[in-house]
Structures are given as structure tokens and as C-alpha cells.
């Protein structure tokens, strides 16, 4: 019995202390255990795949680091980062002012682009002049709505919707001429049978009004790691690695401005 207790105690101690040996070249990436396909998803055998795990792998090759993925629930990611159980959150976390008070972000590594969608037969020039006099649909209280309000509200009429589904229905029945929608959610619809009458009329240009995008988060003041990640991400964009990974999962360009 005593022996058992000793072994157990030693085991506990070991598991507590085991992690500090290779701290220098080891970067622990936190990932929400709730999958978010196609950004992150998990197979039955426990392996992660998706845009973000692939990106992490490529990043680590470049940094020549060892990067274990640690699953934490979404709510627990920031506390886990602050208590040093993970070093980076690279998990579709939007850069917001509130979060920047407690953690630091790298430059955005993706941004959901906004896509113009209209009836297939419609010929459109999606500049403010081209859409003069048209009825444009957009989801209210989104960055897309802010963007339209600033650039398009003079010449065109804006219609605000609560849900993407309502807006799509109105577009299909001709109550609006064109809509500005979240590219990643609307693209699958255009490709499906339900959205066969609709067509992609191009992405809206990148603009600060669309928000700061999605960045990797590090502990406040961990500037060394933040710089490393920024440099590696920039290099991956420059040499095409980023695009290669991105095109596995998305046909639209989701890189940030």
C-alpha cells in the first residue's frame, strides 16, 4: 500500500514537472476542443486537420520548433494562455479591443472576405457608381453593413436583414438586386442546388471597415514569440506556402489585407 502511494505521488510530481525540460524550442498551440470545420476538425483517431492545424504545422517547420496541440475548450483558451498552459492561440479568434486588453495578437492571418452575390443573369459592376439606384441587401449590425453605409448609402438603397437566410430568400425572389454576404458562408450555398440561380459577383476590396481580422494570440508582453510568428507568417505568404494551405480548404482568398 505504502509503495503504491509512493509510486502515485512520484507519478503526480513527475507529470507536474515533466513539461519544463524542453521549454526553449517547444511552443504549445492551444486549439478549441470544439471543432470548427473547415478551420479545425478532428478525426475519430484523434488527429486534427483543417486550415489552422495545417497552418500551425507549416509555421512550426519554419520556426524549427516542436509544436504540440493542446485541446482546451473555447472558453478556457485565454485563461490557459494566461496561466502558461499554452503559448499561442491560433484558432479563429477575432482581434477585438476587449481581447487586446488581456492578450497580444499577431498580424491577422485571415479575414472573412465579403462577397457580392446576385442573380446569375445580372450584369453588375460592384463599385458605388455601378450599383447606383440598386437595392442592396446586408445583414444588420455587421462590419459588412458598416462598409456599405460608408461607401454605398448615397447612391443605393440598403436593406438590412437579421439573418443570412432571410436575405438569400429575398434575393432569390427578386426583392433585392444584390447582397453583400460573408464569403465563407455564402460560397457553399452558391455551389449547392438551393443556390443554383445565384452567382458570385466578386469580393469586396479589403478595407479597414471590415474589422481587424483574425490573429494568433500570445501572452501579453510575449513580444519575442509574437515577432517570430509575424515574421514566419509574412514569409509564408510571400513564398506561397500560405496560399497552398488556404487553397486546400477555401477557393476564395481569405488572407488579411
Amino acid at each position, binding site marked *: 500500500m505504502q509503495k503504491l502511494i509512493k509510486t502515485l505521488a512520484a507519478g503526480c510530481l513527475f507529470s507536474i514537472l515533466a513539461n*519544463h525540460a524542453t521549454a526553449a524550442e517547444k511552443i504549445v498551440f492551444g486549439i478549441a476542443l470544439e471543432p470548427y*470545420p473547415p478551420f479545425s476538425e*478532428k478525426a475519430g483517431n484523434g488527429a486534427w486537420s483543417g486550415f489552422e492545424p495545417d497552418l500551425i504545422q507549416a509555421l512550426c517547420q519554419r520556426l524549427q520548433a516542436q509544436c504540440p496541440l*493542446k*485541446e482546451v475548450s473555447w472558453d478556457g483558451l485565454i485563461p*490557459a494562455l*494566461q*496561466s*502558461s*498552459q499554452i503559448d499561442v492561440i491560433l484558432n479563429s479568434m477575432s482581434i477585438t479591443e476587449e481581447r487586446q486588453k488581456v492578450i497580444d495578437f499577431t498580424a491577422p492571418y485571415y479575414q472573412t472576405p465579403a462577397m457580392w452575390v446576385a442573380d446569375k443573369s445580372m450584369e453588375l459592376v460592384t463599385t458605388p457608381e455601378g450599383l447606383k439606384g440598386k437595392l442592396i441587401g446586408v445583414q444588420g449590425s455587421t462590419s459588412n453593413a458598416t462598409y456599405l453605409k460608408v461607401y454605398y448609402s448615397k447612391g443605393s438603397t440598403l436593406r438590412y436583414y437579421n439573418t443570412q437566410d432571410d436575405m438569400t430568400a429575398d434575393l432569390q425572389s427578386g426583392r433585392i438586386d444584390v447582397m453583400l454576404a460573408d464569403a465563407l458562408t455564402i460560397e457553399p450555398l452558391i455551389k449547392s442546388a438551393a443556390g443554383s440561380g445565384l452567382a458570385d459577383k466578386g469580393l469586396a476590396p479589403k478595407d479597414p471597415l471590415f474589422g481587424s481580422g483574425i490573429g494568433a494570440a500570445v501572452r501579453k508582453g510575449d513580444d519575442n514569440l509574437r515577432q517570430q510568428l509575424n515574421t514566419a507568417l509574412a514569409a509564408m505568404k510571400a513564398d506561397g506556402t500560405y496560399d497552398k494551405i488556404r487553397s486546400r480548404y477555401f477557393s476564395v482568398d481569405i488572407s488579411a489585407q
Partner: protein
Amino acid sequence: MISLSELTQLFVANGWLNALLQGSVVTLQISAGAFVLGLGIGLLVALIKLKGPRWMVRLANFYTTLYRAVPELLLILLLYYAGTDLLNMAMAAMGRDSVTVNGFIAAVLVLGIVQGAYSAEIIRGAIQAIPVGQLEAARAFGIERWLLVRRVLLPTMLPFAMAGLSNLWLVLVKDSALISIVGYSELLSVGKQAAGSTKHYLVFYLAVAAMYFIITLVSNGAFRVLERRINRWMPQH
């Protein structure tokens, strides 16, 4: 509706059945660890409450009140995150490297401490339900203190405590799901991942529910056997 071949594809070929079974094993491990720890704490606290010095009784009362008042989820977050922070601050003060706390140990510790508070009350009640004459008789025979606890008090207390304790076990099995917040892959979190990755939410949530149900059924059977054994000397009505 989902077809049978799709189901076998999901559960067998994609390996999710295996993952769920592993998750159930983890759930049982966490629950068993916490239950044993909780029983130990509970027995100690119950004895203190009944026989201890005044200041320890106060402390014990404070413990059972506090841990039954604060939600387990909050305690897990506190111990796992704030606790690690404190531990690391202490390590830094001593000039050591930072450490990480194992999720499993954190789970067993937190749930065990909470279980201890509940089981202390159950055990205390059960001890008080022992007819005083029995303990007096034992003392009259000159049985010394710890032998009395081990050979008289515990066995005569158990029949009164069993119902409450088996209930506590079932609650604990479900409470262990809370540990998914710290990313430990127990049954529910594996189920969530399966659902989120495959988009077959209903299928996997039902499968997880079925597994918890099976665990409950099996534990009920086990407790029935145990109860029959423990109650064997009780007067039959």
C-alpha cells in the same frame, strides 16, 4: 434519416466508437478517483464534525458549506487556471521554472473535494443513525478507539449511508463532464468533437446519452449487489 451503413461508417470506420469508449473509460477513471478521494475526505470530516475539537468542527462546517455552495464548474476553473497561476508564481518566487498541472489530477482533485463535502454530510447522518447502545456496548467490552471505528462504527454506519453514497456516485459521473472545460477528453467532450467534426449532432449526442445511461445501469446493478452484502445483518422488515 441516417442509414445503417452511414452509422457503421461513422462509428466503426471513422473510429468514433473507439474514441467514445475511450472517453467513457476516462469518465469512469475521473469519477472513481474523485469518489475514493471524496469518501476519504468525507469520512474524516464527518468524524471531525462529530468528535473533533471546537476549532476543527468550525473548519469542517466552513468546508462543507463553502464547497456545497460554489458551483463545481467555477471550482474547476479556479483550481485549474487560478491555481496554476498561483503555483507558477510560487515557483517563480523560488526561482524555478513554470509547471503545468495535469488535467486529470485537477479533475480528480476538484471533484473529490466537492464530493468530500457532500459525502461528509451523508456519513455524518449515517453515523448518527447508529443506535447509541451499540457503540456503548462496544465500549463496555473495552474495544479501543480505532478498532471501534473500524469494526463497529464503519460497518454499522454503511447501511444507512449506502443509498446516499450511490446517489452521489451517479451525480459524480455526470459532474465529471464538467472537466471538458479544461480540455480533458472525457465522454462528453469526445462526443462534442465527434458531433462538431461530422456535423451529425443528434447521432453523437444520443450515443453519448446512451453511454451515460449504460454506465448508470451498470453502477445501479453493482450498488445493488454491494448493498445486499452490506445490509446482510440488518433486521429484515
